[in-house]
């Protein structure tokens, strides 16, 4: 059995760890609030843009808008979005697992990794990446995420890639983040039987091809941006929960160790008394 002093030393070290996790928890809480509000604030933009696409679908001609072109799928590209830093519970592991499982259903997959954790995982699994992005920070702007959307758009337009997926952790609420795989290219209206709807008699200014040519790349850009905001909000939420669990676990451990220390102390006192008593008895006998 460990001595009382050893146990007390462990209590002190666990208490130090607890202070660190508690501080980390507070930091995550404030980062999480900011990330959550920015992900929620940017959702209407993506939703509206998507509904514009749905309205435009009847006018869309894959000939003039190559982003809409459906081809036979030989080569797919998955953009795997993870966090740069760990201490987020199982979030990154779940994301990578979900993406890999999806990749198994595809004939051939190329990868783009966003976030250091995903980059490291893909390297470990010896899956080569087309490009790697990291260090986007906690508040990226569309200018920061632009290179990612431009890259995947170019890969798709060059014909080397027939479809592009985003693998990201969708933020639902603080307790729930869902690893999600979403196809972003080719762009397909959500409503598959959209042809059944009577098309609105739209006027385009200057003309349909120009407007579509501006709307479609923008939609890709915003979808990527939104996915990254979702992942950031998920990261901070997951870290908050992980740190809270760690703080709670440290509290339990401190309680157990304190009990063990007290028991060790009692055992030591009892032992000393026994020694004195048996010593006295021996003297009396002698």
């Amino acid at each position, binding site marked *: 059995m460990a001595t009382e002093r050893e146990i007390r030393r462990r209590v002190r070290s666990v208490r130090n760890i607890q202070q660190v996790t508690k501080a980390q928890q507070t930091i995550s809480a404030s980062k999480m609030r900011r990330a959550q509000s*920015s992900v929620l*604030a*940017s959702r*209407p*933009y*993506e939703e*509206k*843009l998507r509904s*514009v696409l749905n*309205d*435009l679908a009847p006018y869309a001609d894959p000939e003039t808008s190559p982003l809409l072109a459906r081809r036979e799928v030989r080569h797919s590209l998955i953009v795997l979005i993870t966090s740069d830093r760990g201490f987020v519970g199982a979030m990154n592991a779940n994301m990578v697992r979900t993406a890999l499982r999806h990749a198994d259903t595809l004939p051939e997959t190329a990868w783009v990794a966003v976030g250091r954790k995903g980059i490291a995982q893909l390297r470990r699994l010896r899956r080569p990446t087309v490009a790697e992005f990291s260090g986007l920070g906690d508040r990226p702007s*569309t200018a920061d995420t632009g290179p990612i959307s431009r890259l995947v758009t170019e890969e798709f337009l060059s014909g080397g890639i027939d479809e592009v997926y985003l693998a990201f952790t969708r933020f639902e609420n603080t307790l729930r983040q869902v690893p999600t795989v979403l196809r972003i290219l080719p762009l397909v209206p959500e409503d598959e039987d959209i042809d059944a709807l009577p098309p*609105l*008699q*739209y*006027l*385009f*200014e*200057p003309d349909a091809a*120009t*407007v579509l040519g*501006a*709307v479609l790349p*923008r939609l890709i850009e*915003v979808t990527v*941006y939104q996915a990254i905001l979702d992942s950031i909000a998920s990261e901070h939420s997951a870290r908050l929960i992980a740190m809270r669990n760690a703080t709670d676990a440290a509290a339990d451990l401190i309680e157990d160790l304190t009990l063990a220390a007290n028991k060790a102390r009692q055992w030591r006192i009892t032992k000393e008394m026994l020694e004195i008593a048996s010593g006295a008895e021996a003297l009396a006998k002698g």
Partner: protein
Amino acid sequence: MPLHIEVITPERRVYEDDVDMVIAPGSEGYLGILPHHAPLLTALGPGEFRVKKGGSEEVLAVFGGFMDVREGRVTVLTEAAEHVEEIDVRRAQEARDRARAALEAAAPMSAEDIQRAQAALQRALVRIRVSERRHRRRGE
């Protein structure tokens, strides 16, 4: 029948209200939208976005994007939009001067740099124009 208008950027919802008329900076020139306008989708240039409601008028500066008009709803999706009160004229003037200086400087610039400076110049000019309009009206 009022016209329901929303101005949304990727970062936030800038404006939402029921109004009488909007005047938007279309890519081909300014255009006015009244209730019962035919469905329209247009690209927007940088410029003043004016909203009329009752006797008053509100002005926003918008910087590119699209406007979707249908069934009494106007949705503006733009990269950036600012209320006139949010515009810092002095900063805009400084940005204008900086951009002009950069464009006139003899130093060689990459195409991307030139594009960025021109975009900055245009944004600054829109901001200045929008805020000047407001101040003129105040002076009347």
